[in-house]
């Protein structure tokens, strides 16, 4: 049970990672991130189940496709609104989510679908606990992905460029960084991350157009984790996943679906900057 909580939390964490990357770079909060994940899962279904590709090939193709979609979205839409007031960005990304959902509904229909993986159905016994391989795959995938991202941002030139761009766009322009392209790449990267989350999630839960609503819960995770630190966000996700599991058992019915939001509001009240972060408030 703890493991399934952690696995669920890892999914939240991964979507939240996507949020935070985009947010740090562009100050856009991408409400459509959950729908990116949904789209990724559907693409995975198409490649693996419907076109009978090998699992890993489908996995890679999905990630590439989602990265391309993310890049194009930025090129066509998001780039024009960077720097506009919050409400415009919020509404824009929410409506983007609606459009994606409608498109997905039109292409794949409303019926839930699922992916079969090489490891699905197998169980692992550790002592008295029985753990499904799908959940281990989620956790392992998250760990690998986080390590890769960490290495990328810390040591590669592109990663450092991305960090610089997200700290100060104007200064980045002065330093000769192609800011617009970098921003598009960041959004592509975040779309790819959510695609991975989508594919890993697909074997556990059914894939349908409502999957995108998970994005909103991932927000709570992002806020609890502090919104700017990548490891903090992942921890926040795991915290949310675990507390959901425990609430569904120990607390009255109806608390479990909203425990994430309750925690989020409590965190916002006590420490508006999140549990694991440093942020400065304007003071007079």
């Amino acid at each position, binding site marked *: 049970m703890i493991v399934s909580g952690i696995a669920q939390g890892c999914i939240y964490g991964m979507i939240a990672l996507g949020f935070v990357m985009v*947010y*740090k770079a*562009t*100050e856009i*909060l991408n409400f459509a991130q959950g729908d990116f994940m949904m789209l990724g899962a559907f693409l995975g279904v198409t490649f693996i189940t419907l076109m009978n590709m090998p699992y890993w090939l489908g996995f890679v193709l999905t990630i590439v496709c989602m990265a391309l979609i993310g890049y194009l979205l930025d090129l066509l*839409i998001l780039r*024009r*609104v*960077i*720097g*506009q007031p*919050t*409400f*415009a960005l*919020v*509404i*824009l990304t*929410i*409506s*983007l*989510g*609606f*459009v994606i*959902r*409608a*498109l997905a*509904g*039109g292409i794949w*229909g*409303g019926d839930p679908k699922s992916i079969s993986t090489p490891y699905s159905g197998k169980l692992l016994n550790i002592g008295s606990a029985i753990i499904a391989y799908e959940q281990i795959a989620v956790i392992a995938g998250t760990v690998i992905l986080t390590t890769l991202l960490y290495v990328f941002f810390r040591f590669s030139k592109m990663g450092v460029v991305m960090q610089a761009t*997200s*700290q*100060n*766009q*104007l200064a980045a*322009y002065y330093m000769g960084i192609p800011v617009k392209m970098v921003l598009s790449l960041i959004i592509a990267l975040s779309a790819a991350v959510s695609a991975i989350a989508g594919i890993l999630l697909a074997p556990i839960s059914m894939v349908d*157009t409502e999957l995108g609503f998970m994005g*909103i819960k991932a*927000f*709570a995770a992002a*806020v609890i984790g502090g919104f*700017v630190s990548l490891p903090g966000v992942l921890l926040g996700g795991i915290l949310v996943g675990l507390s959901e599991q425990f609430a569904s058992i120990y607390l009255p*019915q*109806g608390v479990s*679906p*909203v425990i994430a*939001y*309750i925690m*989020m*509001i409590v965190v*916002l*009240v006590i420490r*508006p900057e999140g549990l694991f972060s*440093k*942020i*400065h408030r*304007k003071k*007079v």
Partner: protein
Amino acid sequence: MRVLFKTKYLDDIRLIKHSGYAISYGLLLVVALLLPQFLGEFYIGELAQVFIFAIAGVGLMILTGYTGQVSLGHAAFLAIGAYAHVFFLEMGLPFMLSFILAGLISAAVGGLLAIPVSRLSGLYLAIATLGFAIIVEDIAKHWSSVTGGLGGKMVPAPKFFGHEIWTAWEFYYLCLAVLILIVLATLNLLRTPTGRAFVAIRDSETSARCMGVNVARYKTSAFAISAAFTGFAGALLAHRLSYISPDIYNIITSIQLLMMVVVGGLGSIHGAIFGAVFIGVLPQALAISKDFLPLAISQTPGLEPGVFGLILILFIIYDPQGLYGRWLKIKLFFDIFPLYRKSTFKKQKSYTKTERLR
């Protein structure tokens, strides 16, 4: 173009700036009063719904358009208003009393919500209000003794002095009266020191504080007033649908409300009303256009929100000032006829620079 010559300080804050206002809005009022004579019952009902949305829109406009606080959770106040109203009606209170109590309860909740969330700004505020709305929806689902749970509840017809309002046109006049009262109240509010403090907070919180505005207090009152108006709208909406259940007040409704003020144009009461008309007309237009579309497209799940989303995206990219902004541009074009320049309304390019210092 009319040039106003102001001779008294009070001229600055007059509601009716010149005779043109009196004539045009007077005409509008007459048209609104006469409409039930010419329209069928269906359209009157739809118009009443537009008025209800306009009331909620004015409420949200006070918060988002004038105080600058984005709320993604206003459907929660619609729900609170509706449930409180029905609860009091079932206790046997008269309509007026229960209506006002519903607004007050909604205001109280709004004020309470503001205490924690008024410390947040921009994005965090949007998320916190979103979380609040989801929690309220969940409470409505599970607190069955008051809310009727998932099954919902029937709403008794509004009663005035023992006379039940059943016909569509009576309900239409009720909604119109409430809308006019609320718009007048808002106009008056905006020319008081309180309203000016709201606008100051919107334009710059830091400088508002420097000028001695108690930011926390005014944000709380903005939340409370906005919640009260939205609560009134919720009570009326309950009558309009004559049935309440939690899924009427989900996130989509909150987003629709926010859409309404953005499409209409932030920072103007006209905007709220234009937005309400837009939101009211669009589903009808979609329903009609469905008949002409091929079956594969018209049967797509989530088509309506998708089209909504597309329109919003276009609005935000091409016309961020909304319908009212477009109206102002057209008006200015004719006012100064050969001299209109496109760059009058142009925005400056802005670069994002984070407030995070590390």
